[in-house]
């Protein structure tokens, strides 16, 4: 086909071909006809095919790095298989899942994930809401404050956690030093305690994500029609009453969105507790006091090399996230109805 097309010009008269005129005319018409056909076919392909070509990069990447690992993990979760010897595998059915039910380390990790999620998400969103409200006032240099809000979010987990780990140090940490100045003589070993370690991990999460949520709330607040505030003010509502009765109700869908995103993030929490734990951080402390599901998965897969068990944990987490999404969906529907 291609050679036909390239051969055609050599026969054309404008190259000084000696062919008779009508013959050349005929050849030109044939060529045009061919070209038209080719073109219309191309357009048809273009219209039908191009959208697929344009979206394909994402789906190819998704298939390679999303779907395939998901399916491979599911397949692995039905086997007794070690990372050290992937060729030796034994089919065990649902065993890896059923054993999770009696695995105290798994339940401990689930509980920790829940408590750390709670003590990091709730204060974080409340603070974000308050900060967004403050930033929504007319301020000198408001852009500066808004950008400053995003700085923690732009900091890498590793850098932030390193600094926090130093601050929460037992003997030379800034926090214990400050506590000492206000009268606590006993140094808290932040990492050794259950609550203290979970609070420390949560504080890193809160520090990193409050600004991010603040900006989302701020954007939503600025979309609230100003006349609502005006009429509220005319009715004699104070700033606080305006916040409670105008801002918060108008922000409800946005709040729900941030709750969903934060919950998903909290369920997958990994970097902060891992780095906070120092060497061998995947254990989440000597009594697993801040081992999250992500860390337990990592410990099973990459420290103990039990790939089958790790895969089962990964899928359990995935199902948990689906459950959370479903609950959120129901909540959203209920909220819409109640409005």
């Amino acid at each position, binding site marked *: 086909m291609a050679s036909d097309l390239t051969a055609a010009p050599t026969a054309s008269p404008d190259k000084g071909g000696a062919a008779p005129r009508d013959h050349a005319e005929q050849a030109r018409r044939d060529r045009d006809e061919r070209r038209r056909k080719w073109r219309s076919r191309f357009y048809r392909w273009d219209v039908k095919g191009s959208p697929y070509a344009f979206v394909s990069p994402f789906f190819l990447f998704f298939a390679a790095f999303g779907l395939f690992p998901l399916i491979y993990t599911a397949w692995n979760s039905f086997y007794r298989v070690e*990372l050290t*010897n992937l060729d030796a595998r034994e089919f065990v059915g649902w065993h890896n899942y059923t054993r999770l039910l009696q695995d*105290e*380390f798994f339940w401990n990790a689930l509980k920790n994930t829940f408590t750390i999620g709670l003590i990091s998400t709730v204060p974080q969103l409340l603070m974000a809401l308050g900060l967004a409200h403050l930033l929504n006032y007319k301020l000198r240099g408001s852009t500066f404050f808004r950008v400053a809000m995003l700085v923690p979010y732009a900091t890498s987990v590793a850098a932030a956690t390193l600094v926090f780990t130093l601050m929460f140090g037992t003997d030379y940490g800034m926090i214990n030093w400050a506590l000492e100045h206000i009268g606590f003589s006993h140094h808290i070993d932040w990492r050794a305690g259950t609550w203290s370690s979970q609070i420390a991990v949560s504080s890193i999460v809160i520090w990193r994500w409050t600004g991010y949520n603040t900006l989302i709330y701020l954007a939503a607040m600025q979309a609230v029609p100003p006349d609502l505030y005006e009429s509220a003010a005319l009715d004699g509502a104070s700033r606080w009453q305006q916040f409670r009765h105008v801002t918060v109700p108008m922000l409800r869908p946005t709040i729900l969105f941030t709750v969903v*995103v934060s919950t998903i993030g909290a369920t997958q929490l990994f970097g902060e507790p891992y780095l906070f734990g120092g060497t061998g951080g995947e254990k989440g402390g000597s009594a697993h006091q801040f081992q999250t599901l992500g860390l337990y998965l990592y410990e099973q897969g*990459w420290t103990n090399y039990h790939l089958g068990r790790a895969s089962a944990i990964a899928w359990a987490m995935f199902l948990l996230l689906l459950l959370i999404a479903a609950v959120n969906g129901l909540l959203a529907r209920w909220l819409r109805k109640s409005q």
Partner: protein
Amino acid sequence: MGTTRKSFRPRGRTAAVALAAIAAMGASLLAGCSSDSDTAGSGASGSGNGNGGGKTTLTVGTFGVFGYKQAGLYDEYQKLHPNITIKENVIERNDTYYPQLLTHLAAGSGLSDIQAIEVGNINEVVTTQAAKFEDLSKASGVEKSNFLDWKWAQATTADNKTIGLGTDIGPMAICYRTDLFKKAGLPTDRTKVGALWAGDWQKYIDAGKTYKQNAPAGTTFTDSAAGLYQAVSNSYSERYYDSSGKVIYKTSPGVKTAWNLAMEAATGGLTGKLKLFDKAWDQAFANAKFAALPCPAWMLGYIQEKAGDAGKGKWDVAAAPKSANWGGAFIGVPSAGKNKAEAVKLAAWLTAPEQQAKVFAKQASFPSAVGAYDLPAVKDAKHAYFNNAPIGEIFAAAAKGIPTLVIGPKDQQIYTAITDVGILQVEQQGKTPAQGWSAAEKEIDNALDQ
């Protein structure tokens, strides 16, 4: 407002993590590609002798600092073999490096021509991955008699295939601060200090008790019960596994003795309750918070770095109560490599006594090659930072007494469970030794059960 809300996509943590993952994958793909293309052009020379055209690039995959580059060994080898270029791929920590090595071995790609293996993993590699490595025992330039017997045995399969050549080992001594020892009324001369506890770890604890009576304010005798446990348990030939491969940690005398001594130190207030290789551990070095610790040869560099200039001349090295090994590594040649013959030659050269001596001179990683001990670079080595201690002499003496330790596939997991769970719970959370032990047992059961 509805539309603005919808236009927000959840580009939160999930997106960030996904991006990071893609970036990491992309990076590793690129790395894979580049090393492939490096070797592709020279694939023909994989048969061995330089084929006259083009250079062969050999890659060496290591974790942490192996000292080859630092000691100038690559440059030297390249000068000796003009057709060879050597590249080193370093991953900081073995707990990142080793899983990656396993996945690369499983996939048969992404491997360096030479791969390092940590001593804690060597048994697992020998028992499960031997088929994927070249047999180095009969390679030219490799002399079995050059290596310590136990070191050679650790990397050799039951049917006499040697998949790794020993690099360094970790003979142990005791590093101590003369200034703190003096204040506490203990001797400071290294032979007198060594004599304090010669032959028995219990005497080391007793010295700790003496130290505690007159301890300078804010200091403890040693850093951690975990370091002590490590040192004591390694001076036995059986620890977690017996020679038939059975897990015996619950009853083995080595573990029991080491645990009891560690508990005596922990509950007797002799330790700084620190976790090894932690930030707080580093800070304790810098602030001279403890007086002594068991130190394998490779740890001297670490101490020097963390204790800094302020500690210069205040540290010294004395013989440990018993000989024991802590750490060390091997290098092997994966069969999936493209330049196997050249890689075997390089591995043999890098682990020869002369080269190990050069690494020791630069990096204080102690040679596993016996032949190196009589070379001046080792024999006469003194360490200025450690009060000019004759470290070559001290560590060579320690190395010769090291028992042939039985290593099992899950040695590292068992060790970590005992130190990072059992011991730390007692030291940092105030649990009783019995509680700590049962927590460690639970942890080990979970780690061993697939």
